[in-house]
C-alpha cells in the first residue's frame, strides 16, 4: 500500500525525515518495497527575485548584466545568458551558496570579466520541467524573497509498504501514523469532526438488511450537492497513493478511505429504484454490470446492496454502473458499513476482483470506525460541495464491538522474551499502542485490546507487541549451545557428487534450471496426458505452469542460449528432480541428463572423431554404475519419441529406473531451438530408494586360481535383430551347456559385419565365449565338447546359423 509522507505528517508530528522511516518501518513490521520522491526536493537559498536593471555585457553578445533584488539587502549583480531576463520580471534566483538539484553549487564568479553573484534559473535547472529556452518567469503575485519550495510546494516522498494480512488496521494513513506515534511516543492527531446536525429529509423510504454477513449498515442522505472537481490538495493526495481523481464525491469517499481505512460507497439517490436499499444475498444467476464495465454473474453466497429491482453493489467489493455517482448527481446516499471479512473475501475471490474496498474489508476494518469515517466524509462533502444532510441517520444493527481482554503477567513476558524488562516499560508500550491496561493485582494485568486490533487475542500476541516496540535490534546477543548431529551424507547427495565429477571430467558444464516448464512445451514433447497430469493448479507464471518430466528441454535451452551468445559450449549436463505421471499420481524421481554436441562448434587444429550413439549410451551406463546398477544386465530396446531421432536412440525401462540415450530429433532441434548441429543426449531417472544400498559393506567372493579358456563363434542372424538379444540367447545356451562340467564366465561381442559375402538382410555377429573351472585347468577336449553342444543348441531354433569360416 502506498503512503504519502506529506499526508502522513498531518496525523503525527514526526521530527524525522523520510530516510529515518525507511529504517523504522521494517523494524515495527512494515516492509518498505520502495521509496519514491516526487516534485521539488528541499532547496536552500533559492528564492523569488525581480530584475531591476538589464544591460548588455560589454564583451559578450549573448550575455546580459542584470541587477536583481530578492527583497532584503543590496541588489545582486548577476550575469545571465537568457533572452527573457527583462526588467520587472519575477524570476527564480539561486544565490551564492545554493545547491542545485543536480548537486552543482552556486559560487561567486566572473563571466568574461564581469562579477556575478548568483544565477537566474530555468525550469529544467530546477527539475520543474523540460523548458530550457529561457529562465522561468513567475507570476507577479509571489512576494520577493519567498523560498522556492513555498512557490512550488508538493514535494513528497511515497512509500510502498508491504502490510501483512493480519494488519488490516494499517491500510490507511491514520493506521500507519498510529504505529509511528507509538514507536516515537507521540500523540496521534485525529481529524476533528464537526458535529453537523442535519435538517433535510432522509432519502430512503426503506432500508432493510436480510443477510447475516452485514451486522451494521448506515445510510446518510445528502441533498442538493454541487458536483465538481476535487481541490488540488486532494487530487495530489490521491495521485500520490496511485488513484486517479474522478469527481468530487467519489474523490472524497476514496480520500477518506485512504485516511481512515474505512471503505464507503456513494449512491446517486435518484438512480435508486423505489427509494429502497436492501442488503441481501444475491439470487442465483443474478447479473450486474460492475464499474469496470464487466457483466458479472452472481451466486447465492454473495452479499449485494440492491434497490427494489436490481443489485446495485457487490457489497464491499465493487459498485455498478446503475447507481454510479456522476457529474450531474445532486442527491446522494453515503453507505458506511461493517461486512463480515470472510464473506467479502470469498466473493472477491469467486468473482476474481480485488479492489481497494474488498482488500480492506477482507482484512477486517475497525467496526468502531464505521460511524466516524462517515462523519468525516459528510464534513468534507458539506464543506466542498455544499448540500444538506438529512436529520435522520438511517441505520441497521450495531457495530460488533465485544471487547477482548487478556490477562497477562510481567513474568510471562520476561520469560518468553528471555531478557529483563521492567513492568513499567511493558505497560507503557501497550498504552502507546492504544491498549488499555489495568492492574489486576501486583503481578498481573488486564489488557483490553482496541477495536482496530482484533487480531490480538492471546497473551503471546501482547508479548509480540512489546518486542516490536522494544526493537529486536536492541536485544543483546548471547551464544546458544546446541548439540551437533553427525551422520553420513545422504546417498542421493553422494551419488550426485560422483556423477558431477564424472561429467566434469568429460568436459561437461553443470547446469541448473527451474523445476517448472511451460504447458505448451509439455504438450508438444510429451503429449496431452503428461501435460494434464503435470499441470499446477495455481502457477505463478504461465511459462512455468507444469512440473518437468525431463531435464533435456532445459539443457537444450541452455545450449541455445550459449550458442546465441557466442560462447564455446559443447557439453552440458544437469541433475535434478523430474516428475513422471503414473496413472493418477505423479512419481518424483531423481534424474540426470546430458546434451553433447556431436562435434565442436569452434574451429580446432586437431580433429576428434564425432560422438556416436554408442558413446552416448556409454556415458549413461557409466553414471548408472555409480548408482550400483549392474550395467551388463541392462536390456536396451529401440526408442521412438518426439525428442528422439528414429532408429538412433534406445532405452531401458525398469520399474526402479529408466534410461534413454541417442541422437535428438534433428527437425525438432531446428524448429524449436534453432539448433542446426547433431546433438546426442541421454537421461536416466531413478527412484532414490535404490541408492540406499550404496553404503553397504561388500563381502568378498573367492575366485578361481585357474586360467580361462575361450572359443569364438560367428552367428548369421537377421539384420534387424538387436545384437544384445542374440548375446543374451547365446549366454543362456552356453551357460546351460557348460554347467554340467564347469562354468561359463562371459560372452562378448567382438565383431559385427554385414555386406559382401553375406546373404542380403543378414548380419554376422562374432562372439567370444569364455569358460573357467573352480578346481582345475580346463582341457582342450572337454571345452570343445561343450562348444559343440552350444553350436548345436543355438542353431536348433532355426533363427541363427553358425557362419562356417569363423
Amino acid at each position, binding site marked *: 500500500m502506498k503512503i504519502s509522507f506529506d499526508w502522513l505528517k498531518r496525523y503525527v508530528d514526526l521530527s524525522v525525515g523520510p530516510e529515518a522511516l525507511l529504517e523504522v518501518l521494517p523494524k515495527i513490521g512494515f516492509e518498505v518495497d520502495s521509496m519514491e520522491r516526487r516534485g521539488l526536493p528541499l532547496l536552500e537559498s533559492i528564492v523569488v527575485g525581480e530584475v531591476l536593471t538589464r544591460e548588455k555585457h560589454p564583451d559578450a553578445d549573448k550575455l546580459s548584466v542584470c541587477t536583481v533584488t530578492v527583497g532584503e539587502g543590496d541588489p545582486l549583480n548577476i550575469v545571465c545568458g537568457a533572452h527573457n531576463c527583462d526588467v520587472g520580471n519575477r524570476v527564480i534566483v539561486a544565490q551564492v551558496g545554493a545547491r542545485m538539484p543536480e548537486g552543482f553549487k552556486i559560487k561567486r564568479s566572473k563571466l568574461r570579466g564581469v562579477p556575478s553573484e548568483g544565477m537566474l534559473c530555468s525550469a529544467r535547472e530546477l527539475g520543474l520541467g523540460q523548458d530550457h529556452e529561457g529562465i522561468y518567469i513567475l507570476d507577479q503575485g509571489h512576494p520577493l524573497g519567498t523560498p522556492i519550495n513555498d512557490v512550488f510546494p508538493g514535494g513528497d516522498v511515497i512509500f510502498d509498504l508491504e502490510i501483512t494480512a493480519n494488519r488490516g488496521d494499517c491500510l490507511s494513513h491514520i493506521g500507519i501514523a498510529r504505529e509511528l506515534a507509538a514507536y516515537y511516543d507521540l500523540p496521534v492527531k485525529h481529524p476533528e469532526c464537526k458535529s453537523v446536525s442535519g435538517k433535510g429529509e432522509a432519502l430512503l423510504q426503506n432500508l432493510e438488511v436480510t443477510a447475516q454477513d452485514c451486522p451494521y449498515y448506515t445510510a446518510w442522505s445528502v441533498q442538493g450537492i454541487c458536483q465538481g472537481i476535487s481541490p488540488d490538495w486532494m487530487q495530489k493526495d490521491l495521485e500520490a497513493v496511485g488513484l486517479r481523481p474522478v469527481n468530487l464525491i467519489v474523490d472524497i469517499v476514496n480520500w477518506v478511505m485512504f485516511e481512515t481505512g474505512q471503505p464507503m460507497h456513494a449512491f446517486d439517490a435518484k438512480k435508486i429504484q423505489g427509494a429502497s436499499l436492501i442488503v441481501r444475498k444475491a439470487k442465483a444467476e443474478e447479473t450486474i454490470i460492475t464499474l469496470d464495465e464487466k457483466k458479472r454473474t452472481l451466486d447465492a453466497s454473495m452479499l449485494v446492496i440492491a434497490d427494489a429491482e436490481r443489485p446495485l453493489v457487490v457489497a464491499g467489493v465493487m459498485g455498478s454502473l446503475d447507481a454510479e455517482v456522476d457529474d450531474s448527481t445532486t442527491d446522494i446516499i453515503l453507505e458506511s458499513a461493517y461486512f463480515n471479512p470472510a464473506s467479502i473475501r470469498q466473493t472477491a475471490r469467486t468473482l476474481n476482483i480485488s479492489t481497494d474496498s474488498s482488500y480492506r474489508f477482507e482484512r477486517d476494518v475497525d467496526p468502531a470506525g464505521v460511524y466516524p469515517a462517515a462523519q468525516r466524509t459528510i464534513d468534507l462533502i458539506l464543506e466542498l460541495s455544499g448540500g444538506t444532510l438529512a436529520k435522520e441517520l438511517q441505520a441497521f444493527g450495531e457495530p460488533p464491538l465485544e471487547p477482548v481482554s487478556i490477562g497477562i503477567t510481567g513474568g510471562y513476558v520476561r520469560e518468553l522474551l528471555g531478557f529483563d524488562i521492567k513492568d513499567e516499560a511493558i505497560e507503557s508500550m501497550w498504552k502507546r499502542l492504544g491498549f488499555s491496561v489495568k492492574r489486576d493485582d501486583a503481578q498481573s494485568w488486564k489488557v483490553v485490546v482496541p477495536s482496530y486490533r482484533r487480531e490480538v487475542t492471546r497473551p503471546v500476541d501482547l508479548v509480540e507487541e512489546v518486542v516490536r516496540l522494544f526493537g529486536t535490534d536492541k536485544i543483546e546477543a548471547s551464544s546458544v549451545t546446541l548439540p551437533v548431529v553427525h551422520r553420513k551424507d545422504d546417498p542421493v547427495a553422494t551419488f550426485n557428487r560422483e556423477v558431477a565429477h564424472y561429467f566434469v571430467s568429460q568436459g561437461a*558444464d553443470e*547446469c541448473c*534450471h527451474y523445476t517448472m516448464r511451460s504447458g505448451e512445451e509439455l504438450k508438444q514433447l510429451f503429449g496431452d496426458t503428461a501435460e494434464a497430469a503435470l499441470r499446477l493448479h495455481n502457477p505463478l507464471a504461465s511459462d512455468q505452469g507444469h512440473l518437468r518430466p525431463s531435464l533435456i528441454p532445459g539443457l537444450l535451452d541452455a545450449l541455445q*542460449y550459449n550458442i546465441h551468445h557466442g560462447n564455446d559450449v559443447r557439453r552440458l549436463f544437469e541433475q535434478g528432480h523430474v516428475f513422471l505421471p503414473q496413472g493418477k499420481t505423479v512419481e518424483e524421481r531423481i534424474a540426470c541428463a546430458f546434451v553433447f554436441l556431436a562435434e565442436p562448434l569452434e574451429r580446432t587444429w586437431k580433429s576428434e572423431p564425432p560422438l556416436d550413439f554408442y558413446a552416448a549410451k556409454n556415458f549413461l551406463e557409466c553414471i548408472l554404475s555409480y548408482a550400483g546398477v549392474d550395467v551388463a544386465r541392462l536390456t536396451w530396446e529401440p526408442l521412438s519419441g518426439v525428442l528422439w531421432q528414429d532408429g538412433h536412440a534406445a532405452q531401458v525401462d525398469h520399474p526402479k529406473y529408466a534410461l534413454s540415450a541417442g541422437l535428438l530429433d534433428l527437425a525438432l532441434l531446428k524448429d524449436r531451438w534453432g539448433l542446426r548441429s547433431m546433438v546426442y543426449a541421454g537421461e536416466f531417472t531413478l527412484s532414490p530408494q535404490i541408492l540406499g544400498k550404496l553404503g553397504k559393506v561388500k563381502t568378498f567372493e573367492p575366485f578361481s586360481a585357474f586360467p580361462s579358456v575361450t572359443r569364438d563363434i560367428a552367428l548369421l542372424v537377421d539384420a534387424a535383430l538387436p545384437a544384445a538379444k542374440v548375446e543374451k540367447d547365446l549366454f543362456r545356451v552356453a551357460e546351460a551347456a557348460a554347467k554340467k562340467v564347469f562354468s561359463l564366465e562371459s560372452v562378448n561381442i567382438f565383431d559385427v559385419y554385414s555386406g559382401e559375402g553375406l546373404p542380403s538382410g543378414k548380419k554376422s555377429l562374432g562372439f567370444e565365449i569364455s569358460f573357467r573351472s573352480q578346481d582345475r585347468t580346463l582341457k582342450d577336449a572337454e571345452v570343445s565338447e561343450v562348444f559343440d553342444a552350444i553350436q548345436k543348441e543355438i542353431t536348433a531354433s532355426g533363427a541363427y546359423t553358425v557362419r562356417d569360416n569363423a
Partner: protein
Amino acid sequence: MGCGMVDPEVFKSVDYDPEVWRGYAAGMGVERIAMLLHGVDDIRHLYQNDVRFLRQFS
C-alpha cells in the same frame, strides 16, 4: 530473510504442547547464501546457465 519465534498455534497443529515447547525458526534461500559467498551480483546468473558463469564454479 524470515526468522523469529514460532507461533504456539504452529506447535499445536503438529501435536507439540506449546506450554512445553518453544522454538525459533530462521531460513535463508540457498541462492542468497551462494550469492554472498561467491560475490554473485545478480540472482539470475544462477539459472541462466551461461557457461562463462558455470565454468567459474566447476
